[in-house]
């Protein structure tokens, strides 16, 4: 970060100052130091207020987790950790944790691998690649809920086009108890693989050219330079994509809600779908908030860990480039 801007006098002599602008703080005399120091704070005040406005319900939600608040019980009482004991002792909660983690890990891994491959393929700058690079973002810009609607129509065993095209017949049900989670992951892959590909492609294009030319001269094979040069240098970009995807997958809701609403049974009941059921459908605000608080803890710990990994990777990549 550069030196603070306010080190130099802000304004010239008073007679230079024609406009006069009428603002007290900007009159022709040199601005006092304290006002200069306050400037970034003043500029941030509205944003801080908004942040507080969002933090307030967030804290309230955390408090709900320690109450017995529901539509049926509008006069909530503090009940300590009773909600946590009840939720953590519930097999459905642990099923939700397992479903959420399975979903997040599988979707993130598949999207990362596919995204890197697509980025490498598009980077070849063939005619085909150039044409398709333009439309790469299309699925990413469609709202996940609309993507869910699209795929729900295609998944339909009787009328859906998927079974027809794949020759599966009407007995194959994509949204059955066994398949629903994997089908939801397919939709996630469809929407978000372009996200990984775009980030990785931008990363590849920002890499320095020299190491690759040098390894070319040395006659290294492409697999060797991919593994020893590109992958290490690309790792920070890939990690950024992994972090964004994994964190978003942990709180997945939109397209699963449209596809299955968490069913059949609890086959796709991710943590946020479970919280939605509890707090909005059954109007048990405290129980839903307990789910969310636990999910938030999972997200927070994962974020901390992944960001520290990213920091290390960035330092290592910076070293490798020099």
């Amino acid at each position, binding site marked *: 970060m550069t030196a603070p801007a306010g080190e130099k006098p802000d304004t010239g002599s008073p007679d230079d100052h024609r406009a006069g602008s009428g603002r007290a703080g900007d009159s022709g005399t040199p601005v006092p130091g304290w006002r200069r*120091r306050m400037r970034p704070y003043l500029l941030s005040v509205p944003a801080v207020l908004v942040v507080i406005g969002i933090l307030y319900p967030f804290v309230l939600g955390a408090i709900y987790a320690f109450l017995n608040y529901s539509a049926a019980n509008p006069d909530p009482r503090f009940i300590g950790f009773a909600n946590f004991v009840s939720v953590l002792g519930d097999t459905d909660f642990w099923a939700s944790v397992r479903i959420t983690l399975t979903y997040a890990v599988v979707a993130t891994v598949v999207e990362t691998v596919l995204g890197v491959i697509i980025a490498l393929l598009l980077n070849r700058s063939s005619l085909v690649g150039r044409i*398709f690079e333009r439309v790469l973002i299309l699925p990413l810009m469609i709202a996940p809920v609309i993507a869910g609607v699209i795929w729900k129509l*295609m998944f339909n065993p009787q009328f859906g086009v998927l079974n027809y095209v794949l020759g599966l017949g009407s007995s194959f049900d994509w949204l059955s108890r066994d398949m629903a989670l994997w089908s939801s992951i397919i939709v996630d892959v469809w929407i978000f693989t372009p996200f990984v590909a775009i980030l990785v492609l*931008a990363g590849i294009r920002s890499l320095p050219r020299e190491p690759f030319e040098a390894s070319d001269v040395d006659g290294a094979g*492409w697999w060797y*330079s991919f593994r020893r040069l590109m992958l290490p240098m690309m790792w920070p970009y890939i990690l950024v994509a992994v972090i964004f995807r994994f964190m978003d997958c942990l709180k997945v809701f939109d397209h699963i809600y449209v596809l299955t609403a968490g069913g059949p049974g609890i086959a796709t009941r991710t*943590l946020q779908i479970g919280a939605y059921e509890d707090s909005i459908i059954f109007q048990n605000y405290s129980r839903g908030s307990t789910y969310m608080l636990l999910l938030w803890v999972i997200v927070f710990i994962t974020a901390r860990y992944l960001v520290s990994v990213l920091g290390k990777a960035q330092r290592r990549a910076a070293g490798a480039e020099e």
Partner: protein
Amino acid sequence: MATRELKPGQRRITGGGIVADLAIIAWFVFALFPILWMILLALKTPAEQTSTYFVFSPTLENFVTVLTDRGTELTSVDFKTAILTSLLNCGGAVLVSLLIGIPAAYAAGRWKFRGSDDLMFTMLSFRFAPELMVIVPLFVIYNQIGLFDTSVGMIWVLQLVTMPLVVWILRSYFADLPEDLEQAALLDGYTRLRAFWMIALPMVRPGIAAAALLAFIFAWNNYMFPLILADSAASTVTVAITSYLGGGGQAYYNLTAAAALLGALPPLILALTIQRYLVRGLSFGAVKS
């Protein structure tokens, strides 16, 4: 892209031209087929809605129905109103985000001040916080103070999506701006405010446009806020589309498809116009393009 010079690793990672092209085409068949199928479905007559034909005589009837009907027998959706509501909500949210976010982004990009990192990190954490954590209390509060199902309520909550995005994108634009230009303006007798307004702001105009459009897309695509915090009056496009799916198996397939296409059109058009800035926006500036 103006120049197509050799990119890093390009010559190396080039194995099997035709195989690679086929792999790319395979992905794009998977990626584009659902969109193509939506278009076909939207162009079919109601009688053909459960068919799997690829060849038929197309009709625009479904789009007309979606845009003119005040709801069919089963859905009480007024899609046209939902579009106007979405425009109002998202436009309002973006406008407020810019008004509040630009000063904060300028402060954070120009100066390192005590608490700036905390403020920035808190905003970034909103990107990863589970929405329901905030929505459930807001649902209770909104019901108490009468913001439920209002555009004011929706605009306020959409800040959660748009403001951090605007601040994070623009922060990196302001930070990249050489400070000498503003200093020169100050020496010429400009006030700080004028230097910001006449020098800094115009120079980050592409960033502001990209941030605004991306924020609009994110707000437009949001589903959970209107699903829970709005009912009929402030219901948006994303919620309206799902109502065409019907409840117990009875669905308006081609109306759903037409509505889905109409609802996806604004983000798609905006995304194509800001494609150059997308990477920086999508990754919150973590990856600079």
